[in-house]
């Protein structure tokens, strides 16, 4: 195939704000967004979902971890406009109504945080880690949680919380429906 034979140039959207539709936590949200807007800023500033935190804003700390199509990724390095047609899940989407997710319970029970700023990202990674089957040992948990930094160094307690949920697991999925 030679590309010159195919003159279909795509229509560029923006740079002025563009109408897009995001699917977040099962809700459909039409938004008017500058194409530069990160998913993180779209969640926090436009959808008022402030559970997802902005730490480094350069893909280093993991505080902004969310799921896109159930895979945990960094919202700060994701442009919101690229998420159209995909399902985004944030920490606000983890509880079932007023019932906290088992991982949220376990973080409370094990005091797996001090300041709490990294906690939403830690929990989104922790649930994904169990779904993926990367929590067989403390060493494996540490390795697969390394994308989430905790300035307060609550790491032993975070690992304890993850172990508890891992060991309590029945046949059910860790992720919400």
């Amino acid at each position, binding site marked *: *195939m*030679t*590309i*010159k*034979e*195919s*003159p*279909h*140039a*795509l*229509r*560029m*959207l*923006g*740079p002025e704000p*563009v109408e897009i539709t995001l699917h977040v936590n099962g809700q459909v949200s039409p938004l008017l967004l*500058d*194409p*530069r807007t*990160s998913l993180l800023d779209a969640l926090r500033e436009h959808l008022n979902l402030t559970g997802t935190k902005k730490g480094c*804003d*350069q*893909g280093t700390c*993991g505080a902004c*971890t969310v799921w896109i199509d159930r*895979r*945990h*990724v*960094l919202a700060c*390095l*994701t*442009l919101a*406009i*690229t998420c*159209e047609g995909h399902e985004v899940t944030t920490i606000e989407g983890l509880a079932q109504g007023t019932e906290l997710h088992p991982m949220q319970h376990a973080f409370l029970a094990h005091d797996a945080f001090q300041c709490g700023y990294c906690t939403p990202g830690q929990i989104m*990674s922790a649930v*994904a*880690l169990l779904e993926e089957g*990367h929590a067989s040992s403390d060493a494996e948990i*540490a*390795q*697969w949680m*390394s*994308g*989430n930094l905790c300035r307060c160094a609550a790491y032993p307690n975070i690992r304890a919380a993850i172990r508890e949920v891992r060991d309590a697991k029945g046949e059910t999925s860790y992720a919400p429906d």
Partner: protein
Amino acid sequence: MRPISYARATDIASAIGTVSADPTRAFLAGGTTEVDLLRQGVVAPSGLVDINALPLKQIESLADGGLRIGALARMSEVAEAPGVVEGFPVIAQALVLGASPQLRHMASMGGNLLQRVRCSYFRDAFSPCNKREPGSGCAALDGINRGHAILGTSEQCIATHPSDVAVALVALDAIVHVNGPSGERAIPIDDFFLLPGDTPHREHPLAHGELIMAIEVPALPMARRSLYLKVRDRESYEFALVAVAAALRVDDGVISDVRLALGGIATRPWRARRAEQILVGAPAEQASLIRAAREELAPAIPRRLNAFKIELAQRAIIRALETTASKGGAA
């Protein structure tokens, strides 16, 4: 971050056509380097063509024992693909030891090859940097250069190539398949990564609008026992100080075939051909490995803070080769 326009491509031809039509447009895949550098003002395209919906995600085991990895396959997907884990563990290990789980879910294989250097003077969008602004100088030469390269450097640039998996792919003689305004072509990976020389802003041979389609890995039976050794300042989520991709075949106590490549110490993923030349036909004993490692590092040019890499690299080479040999010896 300057304003950008955006389009989502659903077919390869229009993706390439749209980027080719304007020299200030760029492709957007996983975004893990590009969005970061956009925000820091290091790169400034006027428009992004999102290629994530293109059908380039397949990871295929070929009938002859090789692999074909789609350019948009994610690092995490390739790391867990059975054909990769069993046939080419060096690739799987290099991927799992790179970045973080979140970044591995995002980053594409094509983007991995094209990732930009981690030199802080390149990324600060301010210091003299011949890569970012040709002719402006190199702040790393006399700066904080502990992480910088000792092989393949020039007086223009000493930035280390940051990829892990590219080191494995260089050891395996991979082939990069691209498509673009002038049609398709296949680039041997040895020709894909350019030395900085006097043109450090040129990192690869792709023309504007050329897009990586797939990475092909030729069959190599001894790769089933290959390994990737990564030495770094912390155990996880850190770039290599030294990394070694190794595959070895020993017959009757003699090294009959070897593949060796180095990361973390060179301006490109570094195929250790000087060492390979010494190793092939040599007795499979430590003296051969020591001699080969010393020969590979002989041309190294250390800077003020990175001279330790010369010794570290030799030890890592020896350990990687010993470990590979002990995993199976005769094929």
